[in-house]
């Protein structure tokens, strides 16, 4: 066992419906409360029962926020579990599980500790408690106090039948004792230094960070139709929305969802439409309407692999072009793509202000990887949370589409002021009535397009690390940020810099100046076409010299990025 790691990688594998997710959630909380940095990401099949799913946890004495291939400890909870992750097993891996079940799967020379979670659980009363036993064992191995574990069970099962609480306590204790035995016998003893900073940090999933950003951004309407991996936002707002005065409606389809969100903005609410690629394909009609109505709109588009239904529970960054070119006709839009939990919070929040201020649709472009990934981070900064509405009280004679110097017309809402607010999907005059006056048409096209300049002015600058003017630049966008960050640390080369784009469109005016001086420009993205590389060429006239692309449905891992960078930077 390798005790040199500053972090330890634990993987759990088992079929859907077996409760791997439960173990993941429990360990995230328990290990965090014990003062460890924690990271968890899952991969799962698109089925409710069976198949093979896995959860990868990293437990650290230093912050960890990216997936690694390395497995230090593998908990295989059912036959097939070891083969499922065989490519990640190395001579340093220890496998924990019922040996008999995995006889065929375990490669020669790999250390195995024979433990039957099921047997221990059955002895307590039900093999369903296997999960709880596993949590107890891991708790002991990571030197978590027994009392902390029992506390957790008490809280977790509060409100359940007394018998269930008691049996789960027994199960966690049994697991804990097993774990202690392993530690005492020296078979498995993981020493990581807790970090006192962790205690005051928060731990959440990417999708929850988006939800938080929405609440902080004053979101009070969501229209959505369930589709992985966006559904978590709908669930989050359904869970907390009532307390915050959010109208949460599960629409009959995505077409309804986006039209609802537009209706909500029209009447002065802050609406979000949340979906994934297939759903957004249906929303493009309403998206174009946002352009014509000059309506603010926030769209959460959580990417998964396509075309069509693709791989429903996997990840990809291939809907950038969809977001960029969606909708017929010409009108501006902004696309924000959070790279980590802090950005998921801040950018979602920002999306509402940006949309409101400039009366344009704004995307929050996430993906399955970001949505389903947990780690601990500093609490979000709520100090300046306040909603600045950009609608006005109207006067008699109000013109919703008044032609102004700047291109922005003050936005009124019905029920506030003495003006009438008229919006129309046909080309319209300043009031909002249908027109076929071709001169006016020209003016309206120009007016709509002119708002792009505000979006450019307000664009978020790419993040450059560690310092500009590097020989080689690795360029990435969205959720790959922490992965590339760690890969560059591992690579440890002074001449390689990182440029991450939290806003992918429109580009910040500094883009070309930042990228152009580098000798090699390596663009890393989770798609097959190099969509962002193309965007950089088209909108900043920057030539990408190398691409690192991945499109098998899995997120990049740190080791993989290191390997691929080494190939390029020989």
């Amino acid at each position, binding site marked *: 066992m390798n005790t040199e790691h500053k972090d330890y990688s634990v993987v759990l594998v088992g079929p859907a419906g077996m409760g791997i997710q439960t173990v993941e959630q429990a360990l995230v*909380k328990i290990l965090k409360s014990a003062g460890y940095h924690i990271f968890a990401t899952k991969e799962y099949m698109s089925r409710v029962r069976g198949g093979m799913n896995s959860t990868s946890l990293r437990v650290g004495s230093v912050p960890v926020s990216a997936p690694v291939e390395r497995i230090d400890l593998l908990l295989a909870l059912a036959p097939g579990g070891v083969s499922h992750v065989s490519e990640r097993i190395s001579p340093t891996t220890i496998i924990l599980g019922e040996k008999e079940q995995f006889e065929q799967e375990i490669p020669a020379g790999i250390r195995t500790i024979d433990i039957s979670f099921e047997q221990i659980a059955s002895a307590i009363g039900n093999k369903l408690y296997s999960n709880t036993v596993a949590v107890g064992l891991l708790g002991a191995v990571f030197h978590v106090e027994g009392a902390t574990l029992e506390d957790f069970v008490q809280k977790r099962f509060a409100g359940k039948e007394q018998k269930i609480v008691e049996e789960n306590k027994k199960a966690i204790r049994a697991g804990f004792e097993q774990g202690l035995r392993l530690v005492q016998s020296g078979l498995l003893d993981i020493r990581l230094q807790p970090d006192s900073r962790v*205690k*005051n*940090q*928060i*731990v*959440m999933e990417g999708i*929850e960070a988006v939800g*938080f950003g929405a*609440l902080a951004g*004053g979101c*009070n*309407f969501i*229209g959505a139709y369930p589709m992985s991996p966006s559904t978590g936002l709908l669930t989050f707002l359904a869970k*907390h929305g009532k*307390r*915050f*005065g959010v*109208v949460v*409606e599960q*629409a*009959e*389809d995505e*077409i*309804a969802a986006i*039209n*609802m*969100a*537009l*209706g*909500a903005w*029209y*009447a*002065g*609410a802050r*609406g979000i439409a949340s979906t994934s690629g297939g759903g957004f394909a249906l929303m493009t*009609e*309403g998206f174009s*309407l946002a352009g014509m*109505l000059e309506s603010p709109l926030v769209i959460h588009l959580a990417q998964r692999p396509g075309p069509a239904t693709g791989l429903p529970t996997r990840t990809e960054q291939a809907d950038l072009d969809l977001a960029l070119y969606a909708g017929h006709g010409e009108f501006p839009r902004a696309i924000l793509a959070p790279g980590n939990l802090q950005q998921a919070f801040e950018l979602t929040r920002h999306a509402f202000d940006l949309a409101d201020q400039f009366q344009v649709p704004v995307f929050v472009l996430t993906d399955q990887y970001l949505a389903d990934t947990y780690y601990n981070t500093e*609490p*979000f900064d*709520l100090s300046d*949370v*306040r*909603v600045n*509405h950009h609608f006005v009280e109207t006067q008699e004679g109000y013109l919703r589409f008044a032609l102004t110097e700047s291109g922005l017309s003050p936005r009124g*809402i*019905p*029920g*506030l002021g*003495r003006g*009438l*607010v*008229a*919006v*129309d*999907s046909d080309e319209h005059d300043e009031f*909002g*009535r249908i027109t076929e006056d071709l001169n006016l048409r020209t003016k309206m096209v120009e007016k709509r397009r002119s708002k792009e300049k505000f979006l450019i002015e307000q664009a978020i600058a790419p993040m450059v690390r560690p310092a500009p003017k590097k020989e080689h630049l690795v360029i990435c966008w969205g959720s790959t940020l922490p992965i590339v960050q760690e890969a560059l640390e591992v690579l440890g080369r002074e001449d390689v810099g990182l440029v991450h784009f939290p806003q992918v469109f429109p580009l910040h005016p500094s883009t070309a100046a930042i990228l152009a001086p580098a000798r090699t420009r390596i663009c890393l993205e989770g798609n097959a076409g190099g969509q962002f590389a193309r965007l950089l060429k088209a909108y900043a006239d920057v030539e990408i010299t190398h691409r690192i692309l991945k499109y098998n449905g899995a997120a990049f891992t740190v080791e993989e990025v290191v390997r691929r960078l080494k190939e390029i930077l020989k």
Partner: protein
Amino acid sequence: MLDEKVFYPGKLDIAWCPGCGNYGILRVLQKALAELDIDPHNLVMVSGIGQAAKLPHYFNCHYFNGLHGRALPAAFAISAVNPNLTVIAESGDGDMYGEGGNHFMHTIRRNPNITNIVHNNMVYGLTKGQASPTSRRGFKTPVQPAGVINEPFNPLAVAIALDASFVARTFIGEAERTKEILKQAIRHPGYALVDILQPCVTFNKVNTYQWFKESTYWLEDHNPLDRRAAFSRAIEESEGGKLPLGIFYINPNKVPYNQAAGIYETDTRPLFQRSVDLEKLRGLLQSYKE
């Protein structure tokens, strides 16, 4: 009572054919709203696309003239985020029952406090005379040269089957009675459907004023609280009889959306007047530390 002129928008170039039933609907709706004392500043008309859908342009009120078939989701959201507004969703039969058929069904299920007026001329007007979902069998058009072979959509039967809270049909040739029904529908809390038979004098030479007059009659001795009776009256015509007019069905026990969702239980202000509760947000964030 307001003067109906408050709803006149001034001189406009109206895009409807002379003699079209839409004019009648426009006037009757203006009268009904005036008699109900509805301030144009509290009235939002939501429509889709088509000849009927242009009506809000000829009205002095707030309006959201959106996409073909999509008036209802927008109307739902408007009424959900500001319950002080009177929301009327109006459009043609193609718009509401064809392109918007799915939304029609599900808006009924939501029961928002809106009035859904459908100009039913049994044809597509704006696209020049194709069949609509309510076109009768045998109706000939350039796209259905041998006559419509599909079963016509029966909006009333569908709405009653879905237990819509208010369901009525009228004919615009009967202005006074139409106005009274519209008034009841607008006053009704929850979703109200008013299907208005309306001749398209240009593209429907079969279902004319004369035809509607001869093929309809008013419901009498009908109890609109009786859902089974309402349903059997709604399917009468399919058995070859005339089309009944009037209020078919009212369910006074249905809870309107805003009430069921509890959004205005403790705070009656529309959403635009509220702001983020920072204390609650801090509390929620705190819970993620544990």
